[in-house]
C-alpha cells in the first residue's frame, strides 16, 4: 500500500513503462475512500498509458437453447503486459481467447487492437490479418516440417535473407538453434512448446495468446518452463493474454488477471489484490483455500458464529466474509468457547488445522511450530481484516 501511494504521487507518465506501470494499474480494486482516491488517480494514468487490446461487452453463444459461453466480457490489456484469464473449465476463457484470435464470431460487443476494430457488429477481421499470435495447449506444430520450417512458416513475406536471419534470431532466443533440423516428434514436450512460442514470436505479432500452454508438461518441467517463458516474454516486451485453469500459474505468471465463471468476468486485478481482496465468494474460493463465514455487519466490525471480526470496509447488515486460513491464528480457549481441533495436517513448512465450531469446520494455517494437537479446544482470531465477498455497501 505504502509504496503504491508513493509511486502514484509521482509524475505517472515518467514511470509508466513495463512492469512498474502495470503494477500500478493493478490496484483498481478496493472501496475505502483512500483507495478510491488512488483509483481515480490511476484512472487518469490509464488514459495516458496505452491500452493495446480492448475487449468490450463481448457475448458469444453457440446455440440458441444454450446459455452464452461468454457474456458481457470486458477487459483491457496494456502494452507489454501479461494478462491472465483464469477460471474452471467451461467458464468461457478459451472462447474469449478464440474470439480475440478471430476463430469465432462474436454475437455482440467489440474488440479493438491498437485502436483498430477487429470484431464488431458488422466487422469480423479474419485471423490472418489481425496480427495476433497464438500458442495452443497441444502446440499444433506442423508435423511435416522441421523446427526451422515451423518457425519460418509465418515469414513468407520477408525476403529470403531477412527471413533466415529472423528465424535464427528467434531460435537463438529460445535456445533451439542447435535443434533446427529436428522434426517435432523428435523433440521433448518443453522443446515443442518453445518452438510453438518461437513460431508465434517470429512474426512479431502485436499480441500473443497462450491457451493453457503449460498444462501438457509434467509437473517438474512446468515450473521451470513457466519461468523461462515469462522471462522471454518480458525481455521481448511481448503483450500476452494467458488462459489457464491453474490459479497458482495465473497468480505467479500474470501482471493482472481476470477470474471468469459461467461466461462472466467476476473480478479483474493484480494477483495480490484478487487473492487478498476477492469480491465474490467464487473468486475467494477459486484462488485458494478460504473460510466463508456469514455474519452481521455494523460499521467496521461484524459478528459471526466464531467471534467478532474487523472488516476491510464499513458496511451494515448481512454479509458473507472470506477469511484465508493463513489469516487466522489459534489461542488456548479457557472459557469453553471456540471449538475443537478435529484434524492436524503436517506439511513440513507449515501446518493445517481443521477446527470444528458448532456445526461448521474452519481451516487454519499456521507455521510448523504450532503446538496444538487434535482434541484441543482453541479460539480463533483473525490477523488481517476479513474480506466482504457479499453484502450491501454502506
Amino acid at each position, binding site marked *: 500500500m505504502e509504496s503504491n501511494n508513493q509511486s502514484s504521487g509521482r509524475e505517472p507518465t515518467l514511470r509508466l513503462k513495463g512492469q512498474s506501470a502495470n503494477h500500478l494499474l493493478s490496484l483498481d480494486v478496493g472501496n475505502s475512500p483512500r483507495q478510491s482516491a488512488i483509483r481515480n488517480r490511476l484512472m487518469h494514468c490509464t488514459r495516458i498509458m496505452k491500452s493495446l487490446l480492448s475487449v468490450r461487452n463481448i457475448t458469444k453463444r453457440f446455440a440458441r437453447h444454450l446459455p452464452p459461453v461468454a457474456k458481457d466480457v470486458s477487459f483491457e490489456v496494456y502494452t507489454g503486459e501479461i494478462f491472465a484469464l483464469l477460471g474452471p473449465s467451461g467458464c468461457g476463457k478459451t472462447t474469449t481467447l478464440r474470439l480475440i484470435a478471430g476463430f469465432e464470431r462474436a454475437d455482440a460487443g467489440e474488440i479493438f487492437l491498437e485502436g483498430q476494430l477487429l470484431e464488431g457488429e458488422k466487422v469480423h477481421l479474419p485471423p490472418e490479418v489481425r496480427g495476433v499470435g497464438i500458442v495452443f495447449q497441444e502446440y499444433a506444430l506442423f508435423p511435416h516440417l522441421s523446427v526451422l520450417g515451423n518457425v519460418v*512458416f509465418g515469414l513468407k513475406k520477408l525476403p529470403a535473407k531477412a527471413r533466415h536471419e529472423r528465424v535464427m534470431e528467434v531460435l537463438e532466443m529460445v535456445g533451439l538453434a542447435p535443434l533446427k533440423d529436428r522434426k517435432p516428434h523428435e523433440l521433448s514436450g518443453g522443446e515443442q512448446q518453445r518452438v510453438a512460442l518461437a513460431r508465434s514470436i517470429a512474426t512479431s505479432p502485436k499480441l500473443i495468446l497462450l491457451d493453457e500452454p503449460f498444462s501438457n508438461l509434467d509437473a517438474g518441467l512446468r515450473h521451470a518452463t513457466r519461468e523461462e517463458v515469462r522471462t522471454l516474454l518480458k525481455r521481448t516486451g511481448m503483450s500476452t493474454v494467458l488462459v489457464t485453469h491453474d490459479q497458482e500459474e495465473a497468480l505467479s505468471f500474470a501482471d493482472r488477471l481476470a477470474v471468469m465463471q459461467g461466461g462472466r468476468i467476476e473480478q479483474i486485478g493484480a494477483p495480490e489484490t484478487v487473492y487478498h481482496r476477492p469480491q465474490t465468494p467464487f473468486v475467494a474460493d477459486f484462488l485458494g483455500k478460504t473460510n466463508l463465514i456469514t455474519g452481521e455487519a455494523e460499521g467496521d466490525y461484524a459478528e459471526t458464529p466464531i467471534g467478532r471480526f474487523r472488516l476491510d470496509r464499513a458496511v451494515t447488515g448481512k454479509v458473507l466474509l472470506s477469511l484465508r486460513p493463513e489469516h487466522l491464528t489459534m489461542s488456548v480457549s479457557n472459557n469453553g468457547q471456540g471449538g475443537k481441533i478435529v484434524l492436524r495436517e503436517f506439511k513440513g513448512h507449515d501446518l493445517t488445522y481443521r477446527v470444528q465450531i458448532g456445526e461448521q469446520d474452519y481451516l487454519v494455517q499456521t507455521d510448523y511450530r504450532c503446538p496444538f494437537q487434535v482434541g484441543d479446544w482453541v479460539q480463533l482470531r483473525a490477523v488481517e481484516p476479513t474480506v466482504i465477498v457479499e453484502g450491501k455497501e454502506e
Partner: protein
Amino acid sequence: MSYSETRPLPPWYFFVPAIAVGTGVLLPLVYLLVRAFEAETAELFQIVFRIRTLYLFGNTLRLAIGVMGSGALLAMPLAWLTTRTDLKGVRFFTLMGVLPLAIPGYVMAYALLGLSGPNGTFAELFGTTLPRFRGYWGALIALSFYTFPYLFLNVRSALLGLDVTIEESARSLGSRSWEVFGRIILPQLRPAFYAGGLLVGLHVLGDFGVVSLMRYETFSYALYTQYTASYDRTYAAWLALMLLALAGSLLYLEARLLREKVFHRAGTGTARGANPIALGRWQIPAYFYLATLVLASVVAPTVAICFWMVKGFDPSHLRDFLEALSGSLMASTPAAFLTAGLAIPLAYLGVRYSSSICRALERGAYIGYATPPLAFALALIFFTLRVVPGVYQTLWILIYAYTLHFLAEAIGPVRSALYQASPRLEETARSLGYPPFKAFLKATFPLLRSGLMVSTAFVFLAAMKELPLTFLLSPVGYETLAVNVWSYTTEAMFAEAAPYALAILIFSALFVGLLLIRDTNQEYRDTIIKVSR
C-alpha cells in the same frame, strides 16, 4: 442480439463439391422414381403386382439368406479356430480367410463353371465329371466363397475384442465351456454378425455377374434381361426401384439391430487375450476343415484359371487383351483420381463440421456405395438420356458412376488421416497470416497425402474389377477386363476368358493386399455405422 446458430458454413471450395456429390447420387435415383410413375395407374398395378415379382422377390431373398447362412457357417469356425485355439499357422489361415475377396464373384462363377461339366478342369485332371454348377446352388456357392471374408473379419475382431474376464467369471460360476460359448460368447458376437451380414447382403443384392452366369433369376438378373431384351423401360425402372427398396430395408433392418448393439458393448480392448484352448484330438477334423476351405475358396479357382490359361493360350489374342486392359485403365485411372479428390471435401465436412447438412452430405456418398450397381446404372441411363443425351454411352458417364459408387471407400483413409490432423494446425496457419484455403493447403493437406494415395489405389483397383456398372454404362464396343471375363464365360469360352480372369485375379489380390495393410475391418464398420445413421 444476433446468434450464430451453428458453426459457420464450410468454405465454398469444400461445400460446392460436396453438394455436387450429393446431387450426383440423388438426382438419378429421384429421376428413376419419376420415370417409374410415368405409367398409368392401372398399368402400374399390373406391372408391380404380378406373380413374377413375387417369384423374383422370393429368389433374391432365398439367395441372400442362403449366402449369409453359409457364409456364417464358413466364417465362424475359421474365426474361432484362429483366435481361441492352439492351432498352428494362425497367420496363414487368417490370410486365407481374407484372400477369397481377391476372387470376385463372377471370376468364382467362371471358375466353378470351368471346373465342372464334361469338359471341365476337374474332368480333365481327375477323369470324373463334376456335375455342372447351375442356378441357385451355383450362385450360392460362388457368392458364399466370395463374401464370407466380410463375416470372418468382423467375427474375428469381435472375438479378439471380447472381455475374457466375463467368460472366466461364467466358468467360475459353474458354466461348462460349451455353455459359455452359447450363453456368453455367441450373444456378444451378434453385432459382428449383423455388420458382416449387411455387407454380404448388399453384395448379394448388388451382384450381377454371378446370377447372370449361373442363370438364376433375381431382381438384378431380371433387370438386366429386361433392359437388354425389351423396350419396356417402365418395368425395368420398377425392378430397379424394388431392388433399391430391398437394399434400403436391409440397411434399415441391420442398422436398427446394429445401433442397439454396437454402442452398448463394453470397452473393446482387453489387456490379456484368452488362454488358447488345446485342440487335442480335434486337431485332425480342424485341419481337415481348414484344408477343404482353402482348397475350395482359393486353390480350386486359381487352378481352374491357370489350367484354362495354359490350355487355351493363344498369342494372337494378346492384342485383344491389351485393348481390354487399356479400356479398363482408361476408365479406372481418372475415376480413381477424381474420387480421391472428392473424398477430401466430403471427409473434411464430416470430420470438421458437425452441422446436420454436412453429415447428410457425407452420407450421400454412402448411399452411392450401398445402391445396387445395376439400379444405379439404370437410373443414370434414364437420367442422361432425358437430360444430357450427349454423354450417354461415353466414357464420362462410366467415370461418373465409378466415382460416385466408390467414393465411400475413398473417404475412409482420408477421414482417418484428417482425424490425425488437429484443426489447431490450420488455425495456427491462419494466425500466422495465411488465408483459409492456403492454410488448409499448407497445414492440413500435407498430412493427407498418404491417406489420399491409399484412397486412389483403393478406387483404382476396385474399378478395375467392377462388372455391372461397366457392363451397362461403357460405350458400345468398349472392352474391359471384367466385361470380357463375363461375355466369354456366358458363351462357355473358358480358355478365351482365362487371361482376363487372371488379370482380374491379380488386380483383386493387390486390392486385398491393400485392405490387409490398413485396418479394414474398422473402416468397414465405420461404413456401416455411417450408412445406418
